[in-house]
């Protein structure tokens, strides 16, 4: 394929977004300051939301923003502010830990690449233009999540709900216990 053919708007947007995602991810791992790591993670999460939006998965994009960027990252920042001493760099990681981390990340990368090359069907991969046909209907998502028929997911949905409820009750119990001890 010619270089000029690759320069479609879709590809350019994809490359820009991936650059943001990769740079954010790398920087959030490499930086020494915890708060900076949270900020770079924010860039990564927003970039991924942008990728979803680019693929017309609007529901996923909004969920990514509200759950990860708005919710979980906020929790991280709260935790850092409450626990971490302001402005101090995190401890440098020992050599042994670095070795284990290198082994873990290398094997993870090998696993992903191997799966891609063995099972991935690059020849029949839909062209970059094809995945932006139409947005996923919100009604379809709703009925799929809350239906009981084939390929519908009421049971996992309810199970997740019960799990979250258990988490809330657990948090309440822990919070109450501390009060009694005082």
């Amino acid at each position, binding site marked *: 394929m010619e270089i000029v053919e690759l320069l479609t708007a879709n590809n350019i947007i994809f490359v820009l977004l991936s650059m943001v995602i990769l740079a954010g991810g790398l920087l959030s791992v490499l930086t020494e300051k915890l708060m*900076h790591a949270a*900020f770079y993670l924010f860039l990564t999460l927003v970039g991924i939301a942008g990728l979803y939006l680019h693929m017309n998965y609007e529901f996923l*994009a909004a*969920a990514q923003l509200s759950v990860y960027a*708005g919710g979980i990252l*906020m929790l991280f*920042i709260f935790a850092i502010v409450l626990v971490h001493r302001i*402005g101090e760099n995190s401890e440098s990681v020992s050599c042994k830990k670095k070795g284990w981390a290198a082994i873990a990340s290398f094997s993870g990368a090998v696993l992903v690449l191997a799966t891609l090359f063995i099972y991935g069907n690059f020849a029949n991969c839909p062209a970059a233009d094809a995945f932006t046909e139409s947005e996923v209907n919100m009604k379809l998502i709703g009925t799929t999540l809350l239906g009981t028929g084939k390929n519908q997911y009421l049971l996992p949905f309810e199970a997740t709900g019960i799990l979250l409820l258990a988490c809330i009750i657990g948090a309440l119990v822990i919070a109450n216990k501390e009060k009694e001890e005082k």
Partner: protein
Amino acid sequence: MLQLSDIITWIHEFLSANIPAEWAVKLIEYVLVGLGFLTLYALIALFLIIFERKICAYFQCRLGPNRVGPWGIFQVIADMVKILLKEIIPLKHNDKLLYYAAPFIVIMGSLLTFGGLQFAKGVHGVDFNIGVFYLLAVSSISIIGVMLAGWSSNNKYSLIGAMRSGAQVISFELSACLSMMAMVILCGSMNLSDMMESQGRLWFIFQAPIPAFIGMVIYLIAAHAETNRGPFDLPEAESELTAGYHVEYSGITFGFFYVGEYCNLFINAAIGALVFLGGWQPLHFPGCEGFNAVMDYIPSCVWFFGKTLLLIFLSLWVRWSFPRLRIDQLLHLEWKIMLPFSLFNILLMAVLVANGWVF
């Protein structure tokens, strides 16, 4: 009658006729839309600043700004020029990266929300299938900027302000979302265009008066609390925290927070107007054909901005009338009063809609 959407179609046809390449037309249109939104954003902030100063003066039995221009309306222009020329004072011992990134995150969150609104018939930036959910999702980004600003200033007051703001916004977001969900149940769609269409017959507040009214009151309180304005202005609390999370900012970096605050005021009122009061739809009652026809003569953007201004006025009224809440009163209000009410409201709305007991 000339509508705003006609002007937009006219610009599109003019560009398409004169520029052969389709991508160039699209590019120019994207840039124009972006510039239009930014200009509108700044103009609305300017207008709201003078509006609030005048209203506040009225509530406090004084005149307000009255030197620059007739009734002092150019005071805000002078202030704008001043803030643009002010020096951005660099601080020692703060976190430079986060300190300068924070205002941009705040303004980004509020601009993204701004793009999802519908200003008049056929005038909107994006029209997603998930409309309301998109608005709620992107408006939750700003708070990260506030937290980063408070933390990176390396100042006790700003950190306390940021923590308070975080706790407050996260709590009140719940009620705001839940009260909107009730309206989504009534409409059967999250898409703002669909919502506008189904309000053409009758506004949502009249379609199911009781739950819609409860929802609207809850939404207005929660949205008001999310903008960190009095009586919920604990994060800023000038008498105890000087100015909260933006105390160390100067010049245009402070200006970003300031403009963001006023535009969030507008955005919250606009969402309230769109979801509860029919947005740009004129006041219609089924059966009164003559009345409906008269109402149709008022342009849709006048309806939208009129309703939004009404809600903004309500918000200012509350701000300048009530004393500041304590933090425990604030959290009590959200978790023990508003949250149960909004959960009950969703149930009530679901029962009404399921039985068809709506107008």
